[in-house]
């Protein structure tokens, strides 16, 4: 059985995400910074009236980007009921990969990127790292430290 993956690049590093989660790919996303947000969140952008949170994949994956963020490509991904944007350097091909070639990370895999990487596909000459957006979204919403609120009521609801 084959699964389809969209590959993308940050610097020289290649990664991929499951293709069925990709909604669309945009160039020059004009995002607004959100001061105080987690480091990986670069800001929010407007996609046809919908607010979309943009993630800086280089900061999330701990790799160095070779270009300015303003030249980044935005991959819009469906996560549960909402959409998010992944800012990457370059988008590659869509690959059909055999499910049997998939491997989960080894047990000594560093903890700090376990929340993003689900495993890798064995290509002929390299390992293609597979990213699961659901995983790091869960990580960000679940473990996010909520500052102690001082009896302030939410504005809505």
């Amino acid at each position, binding site marked *: 059985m084959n699964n389809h993956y969209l590959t993308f690049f940050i610097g020289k590093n290649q990664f991929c995400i499951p293709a069925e989660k990709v909604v669309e790919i945009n160039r020059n996303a004009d995002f607004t910074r*959100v001061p105080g947000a987690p480091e990986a969140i670069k800001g929010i952008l407007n996609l046809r009236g919908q607010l979309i949170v943009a993630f800086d994949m280089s900061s999330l994956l701990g790799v160095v980007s070779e270009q300015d963020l303003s030249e980044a490509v935005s991959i819009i991904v469906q996560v549960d009921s909402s959409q998010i944007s992944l800012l990457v350097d370059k988008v590659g091909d869509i690959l059909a990969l055999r499910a049997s070639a998939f491997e989960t990370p080894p047990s000594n895999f560093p903890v700090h990127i376990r929340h993003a990487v689900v495993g890798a596909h064995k290509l002929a000459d390299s390992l293609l790292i597979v990213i699961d957006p659901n995983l790091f979204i869960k990580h960000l*919403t679940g473990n996010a430290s909520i500052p102690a609120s001082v009896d302030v009521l939410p504005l809505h*609801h």
Partner: protein
Amino acid sequence: MENNDEILSEFILEAREILDLLDADFIRLEQFPGDKKLIGNIFRALHTLKGSSGFFAFKRLEKISHAGESLLGKIRDGQIELDPEKIDRLLDTVDVLRVIIEGIEANQSEPAGEDQLLIEQLQVLAKNLATTPNLEIKIEPVIEVIFEVAPAPSFFDSEVIIDRAATLVADAPVSEKLYDVTAPVKVNLDTLDRLMNLTSEMVLARNRLLPFANDSKDLNFSKTVRSIDLLTLELQERMMKMRMQPISYVWSKFSRLVRDLSHECNKQVHLTQLGSETELDRALLDAIRDPLIHILRNSIDHSIEIPAERKLKGKPEVGNIQLMAFHQNGMVVIEISDDGAGVDYERVRNRAIDRKLLSPQDAESLSKEGLTELIFLPGFSTKEHISSVSGRGVGMDVVKNNITNIGGSIEVDSESNVGTTIRLKIPLTLAIMPALLIGSKDETYAIPQNRILELVRLSYGKNENLLEDFYGTPVYRLRENLVPVLYLNEELKLGKAGMTHEASINMVVVQSSGVQFGLIVDGIFNIQDVVVKPLGPLLNNLPKYAGATILGSGRVSLILDVDGIAAESGLVGRIQAKPIPPPEAPIRIAEEEVSMLLFELPGISRIALLLQDIEHILMLSSTHFQENGNKEVVFYQDQLMHVVRLQEYVSGSDTGRQADGAVSPVLTCNINHKIYALVVKQVHDIIQVPIKMHELSSPQRGIKGCVIYKDEVINVLDLEEVIAMHNAHDSTTIYPRVIDIQGVVE
């Protein structure tokens, strides 16, 4: 299986609706025990609930609703009499059903539980004087037919619901009328929000398109754009309406609440609901539910007296609470009035002195309005003991907070032994609100306008000490009150504000939980209506933002949460920790003072106008003014404003016009839905003066009277007269010099 989930959630939704209506119906039944139609309604509702429970094999639901239905069937057929005990049992039944439905919603399966006792009680009540041993209930053929005809997704015949909803709204038995009502379509709130998003996006796209049409010479193109413009406008209006729901959505639960609470307090209370068809945005309805419940609790527990006491006072034994909703000035007003004991102002006064909030002298001189303000202070209560109904530490301050958070206001009007009226003013919608756009480090942020008290611009040239140093904390002296000052750049961790080389400081004075503070920003832009969008779960834990909005350019702008910023900076927490006396200013206003804007006209150095008459102050260049007939108008931010050059109408001023292109301050005001732009020479200050005005020795054109401020006599502009004079020119025989054909044709 997804499909099944959908059907189940549909079932839960409709079951909840039925249970809500049942609550209300039982209360009505208690008042009109003989209402056969009502009993029929309840019977059918329980029956349909039983039917669909059977479909899902929810055994508990089925058994309980069957037992309740059996009892009701007997009552309907007149075999047994309805009494309070039966009503209580039936209400218990509804409660148990509700618990089960909630359990199903949480776990997709029926929660475990033992209902044998309740079922037996119901059966005993049903057997009581029962003449026919046959417990089998005949199913009404009509209902069966409706049930079969109704397509699968709807488990309950919607007519039952509509019928009963109509009964509730009209507050009168409804019979044939129900067939006039077209069945409403249920739409997911999410779907609505998405449509709403698209619509606002459409509005933005239209805004970008309009300049092209204005510049274009192609008439066809302009016409097409014009029709798109109109369609978009209508689309937007309709969308706003779609989110509206009648306030009965919240109120329908109150009959039950009032009944239970009054029983608990051993009081008799009758609740009347007027204007329950008044519509409000769904999100607002959810937001006012808790405040309203709190106010009702207060009324029943504290205001309404026990029957014996009422009799002694010569009042009817049954206390009255009236809920009334209506539209006024683009707001929805909700009044909760009771005929109970009212607020004991003496007790409030003594309490304030006890708690050292006020000195005895100050308290003595405080008016009723001033004392009312005290009720809204955190932790302020006149109660000696805490009852189970109220006094659980949530006070009127929370009610007030909740109401101001949604942009509303609250007033209390009470008379000892006559009653209390609490008036809530709520904006029609939350989704759109006016906000001030400000700049901070290259980004634009929005501050909700209802939190802004005033804008202050400080120039270094004039005086050296703009901000003072309160042992390390910057403060500003705002008309003799020290207000703490925050730098927005620092609060948002955008880096230290480079203050020293700036020529001036822009400060927004805002208010949070009764605390005033100044927020220093890099730039102040304009006020506009913004569509509020939630930030979503990923950014929800950032207390400094209330949401975001999309600007005309298509860029996202964050909306600042003033409360969040105050709390994060420690301002609110710190100040509330040590109770300080309530801010002086509001109380001084209560002592018959009023805010006026002090400004200058050519030839008149000081003239004042009531601040409440002014909507905005803008800086406009006279090149923006356009000739329209013999009048000048200005089109600013999608609004047409009529330019009124004040010096032409006020005696004592130079009538000469300013040079073209000069930028002058413009005060906008809204009179009879027309917006006027009053051109002045310079704006000076906001002053507090006694409301009582001195009459002029001889009447002067455009002047109402004068006030004394700091030993200086200041004339007060008569706005009505000026506008009347301005409009009087309309009826003169002078024809417009140029007829704007384009304007007429379009």
